[in-house]
């Protein structure tokens, strides 16, 4: 990286202004010579001898690209371009053809990018949000857009391989595969009997029962059709299984690809502690910030950031100056507060556990009406209440712990993530307990069918319904908070010039809490995708509506946050948390595929001992060669060398990265040394010139 965007180094330099009679008396700041010799290095120098070599070296990316990146005034650039065009170089026709090709390719690429940007969703809105509220809030909306696209593509995947074939085969009337099984296990009648009261439709919509239960929405409606024609065969259960597995792999690949771009940026910037103040002073001002109010807020923001940093410095100094006894007191206080926060989280988990058990028992009894709806939604209500109350209490605890401000934010975030994801896990654990009679599949109610067929004639649909209810409830709560809390708060603050109202102030858009909400919603979809195939579509719609609602509340009710969230490291952090959610979904999927017996009364896997067992069965229908090939890939003689090779490759990359880090440190030290050398030489020169002057004076005096 050089300071001169053109050619560095020791070539002869022609000063364009003097050679071509450009207005040499104009005080253009860009071409002015500085007061000292050293500053000559900072002038942009255009080397006239280089164009020919440039064309030889860089054939296709010719001079026009370099011209745009030179920091010269426009008129100079145009003159240079004219001269370059007039210099008809003696090039072969092949070279000129290459150059013409490159130029037209570039024009095509530019118009292609323009066309694609038309398709990129909401780009103007995101620009406006970034300009008014900063990079942190914009990263939340970018994350939301990423999730919308991910869910939509997943839905297309599922629709293409599972939904559409099911619809086609059902309408064609393809025969079901039947088998003898325990009669009692196969009882499943989700259709309501008799006259259904009108409001029940609405309640059914909200809880996924009734007319919604036996539909394409849930697992129970799909059949185990295996169509085998002369040149066409389609196995619905196999398709269902593979589509779900591929859906998880696809999501993982998308997230990792996106993390790659974010991680490259994080690694390139190196340690973030060095250069904090320089970063704030030189790069925090957003030149795209529009409007007087936004500018004032941005300035207050920068002011606050600097004050916080200076305060952190003084806290660190104070912390280092603590006596031993004070340190012991502080650390023991922190440990005890850690236990207290853990205790709160465990209490929330127990609440969720109890609520889920109660709700499952009550809905098994089939209570109707509003009370029944309340019982159905009890786990969702308890989870949401826990996710709201516990972080508030943890914030109070953090005040006692007295960490530095940045550590406090990270600790609060980690606690909130732990709470959200593990509370979902507790809900699933409670369901599992009831479905499999606490793991002992050959006792009690589970003896007949290896699952609790009395409570759950079709347990997959039931799990799918729980996930559906969680998604819906999450969305409704978001809307309710918007309508019932944020809009009234703004109206109160704006119209009531009371001291209390001013102290409460307008809503702030808190990015971490909102992102955790998105991660939670996406994790619910991942855990439920196996049991409710249309859940990605519902989630896509939910996130699209959420985008618009959040945008409205952002622009109408919120003021920009005083404490900003670093936008580049935070994108990486969001994606890491999303991977944790994906991990939870994967664990649930793997366990359901392999350990629990599918329901015998419904679904595409009804007569298999486990969902995964369809793969070995279909395996034997493949040709011998394919079977042998797949056996080979799975065997040890292939996987162990592969594993060893990947270890070697990984070690190579780790070594490469450490070498680069070391050479960067060495170069930095070298620059420092050169600076000191320069100062030393300058002092020597001054000393020598002074001595010469003294000699001249004495010589002059003596003569």
């Amino acid at each position, binding site marked *: *990286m050089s*300071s001169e*965007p053109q050619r560095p180094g020791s070539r002869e330099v022609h000063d364009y202004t003097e050679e071509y009679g450009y207005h040499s008396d*104009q*005080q*253009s*700041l*860009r071409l002015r010579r*500085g*007061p000292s010799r050293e*500053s000559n*290095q*900072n002038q942009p120098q255009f080397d006239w001898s280089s164009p020919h070599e440039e064309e030889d070296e860089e054939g296709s990316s010719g001079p026009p690209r370099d*011209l*745009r*990146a030179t*920091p010269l*005034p*426009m008129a100079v650039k145009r003159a240079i*371009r004219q001269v370059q065009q007039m210099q008809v170089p003696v090039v072969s026709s092949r070279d000129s053809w290459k150059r013409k090709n490159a130029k037209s390719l570039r024009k095509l690429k*530019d118009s292609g990018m*323009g066309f694609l940007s038309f398709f990129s969703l909401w780009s103007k809105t995101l*620009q406006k949000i970034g*300009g008014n509220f900063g*990079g942190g809030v914009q990263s939340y909306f970018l994350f939301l857009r990423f999730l919308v696209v991910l869910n939509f593509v997943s839905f297309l995947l599922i629709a293409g391989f599972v939904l559409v074939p099911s619809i086609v085969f059902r309408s064609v009337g393809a025969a079901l595969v039947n088998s003898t099984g325990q009669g009692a296990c196969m009882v499943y009648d989700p259709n309501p009997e008799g006259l259904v009261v009108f409001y029940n439709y609405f309640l059914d919509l909200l809880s996924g029962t009734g007319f919604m239960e036996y539909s394409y929405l849930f697992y129970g409606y799909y059949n185990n059709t295996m169509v085998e024609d002369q040149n066409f065969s389609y196995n619905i259960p196999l398709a269902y299984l593979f589509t779900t597995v591929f859906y998880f792999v696809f999501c993982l690949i998308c997230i990792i690809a996106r993390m790659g771009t974010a991680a490259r*940026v*994080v690694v*390139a*910037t190196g340690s973030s502690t*060095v*250069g904090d*103040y*320089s*970063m704030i*002073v*030189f*790069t*925090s*001002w*957003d*030149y*795209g*910030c*529009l*409007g007087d109010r*936004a*500018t004032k807020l941005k*300035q*207050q923001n*920068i*002011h606050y950031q600097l004050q916080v940093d*200076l305060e952190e410095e003084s806290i660190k100094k104070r912390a280092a100056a603590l006596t031993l006894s004070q340190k012991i007191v502080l650390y023991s206080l922190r440990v005890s507060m850690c236990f207290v926060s853990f205790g709160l989280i465990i209490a929330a988990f127990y609440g969720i556990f109890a609520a889920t058990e109660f709700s499952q028992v009550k809905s098994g009894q089939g209570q109707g009406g509003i009370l029944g709806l309340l019982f159905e939604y009890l786990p969702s209500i308890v989870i949401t209440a826990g996710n709201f109350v516990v972080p508030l209490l943890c914030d109070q605890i953090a005040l006692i712990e007295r960490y530095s401000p940045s550590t406090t934010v990270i600790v609060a975030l980690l606690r909130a993530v732990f709470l959200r994801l593990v509370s979902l896990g507790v809900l699933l654990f409670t369901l599992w307990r009831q479905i499999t009679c606490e793991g002992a599949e050959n006792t009690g109610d589970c003896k007949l069918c290896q699952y609790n067929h009395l409570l759950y004639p079709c347990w997959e649909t039931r799990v799918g319904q729980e996930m559906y209810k969680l998604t819906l409830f999450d969305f409704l709560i978001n809307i309710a908070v918007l309508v019932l809390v944020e809009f009234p708060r703004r109206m109160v603050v704006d119209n009531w010039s009371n001291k209390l109202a001013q102290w409460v102030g307008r809503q702030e858009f808190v990015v971490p809490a909102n992102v955790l909400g998105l991660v939670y919603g996406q994790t619910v979809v991942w855990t439920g995708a196996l049991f409710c195939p249309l859940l990605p579509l519902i989630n896509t719609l939910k996130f699209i509506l959420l985008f618009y609602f959040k945008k409205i509340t952002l622009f109408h009710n919120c003021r920009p946050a005083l404490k900003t969230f670093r936008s*580049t490291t935070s994108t990486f952090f969001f994606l890491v948390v999303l991977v944790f959610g994906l991990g939870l979904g994967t664990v649930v999927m793997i366990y359901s595929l392999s350990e629990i017996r599918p329901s015998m009364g419904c679904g595409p896997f009804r007569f298999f001992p486990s969902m995964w067992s369809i793969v070995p069965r279909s395996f034997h229908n493949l040709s011998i060669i394919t079977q042998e090939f797949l056996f080979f890939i799975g065997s040890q003689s292939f996987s162990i060398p592969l594993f060893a090779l990947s270890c070697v490759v990984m070690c190579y990359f780790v070594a490469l990265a450490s070498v680069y880090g070391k050479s960067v440190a060495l170069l*930095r030290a070298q*620059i*420092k040394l050169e*600076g*000191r050398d*320069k*100062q030393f030489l300058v002092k020597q020169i001054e000393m020598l010139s002074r001595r010469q002057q003294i000699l001249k004076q004495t010589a002059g005096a003596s003569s």
Partner: protein
Amino acid sequence: MGNKQTIFTAQQLDSYQDCTYFTRKEILRLFDRYRDLAPQLVPLDYTCQPDVKLPYELIGSMPELKDNPFRQRIAEVFSDDGEGNMTLDDFLDMFSVLSEMAPRDLKAYYAFKIYDFNNDDFLCKSDLEKTLNKLTRNELTEDEVRMVCEKVIDESDLDNDGRLSLEDFQTMIVRAPDFLSTFHIRI
């Protein structure tokens, strides 16, 4: 669409396209924005390359610039006479550097020039103090300003001469991932 416009010759538009990061449509749109600032001063026919300069007051009143605390420095850096009076060439140049396609080195060069208030090609303490005061609307105390300036020079001055040269600045910018997105005006 099409080649019906008579403001520029085809060669002029081509050369603008090669010298800035804008497409043909964007250049015409920017010309309209330039002309809107002073319709009576800017002619509709640029084929004969008239020498028209808009005074700084008009440039500084553009909605994209009027609230920016550095607008005067931006105009001074990109103008030929160093006073902020800009021709169309300077105008296009300015927005090309501030667009999202300009590379980091180019932006760093101009950012350095913008923050160099006394035009001595170094960011010395007084330059940093002025920058800081513009960033925080003079709300930091003297002590805080002094501490922050000392820290900035500590962190970024690699050749230890007590002030930041262009190389120091560019080395520091390489480690700032936000720079490309903040040094960016959407027009």
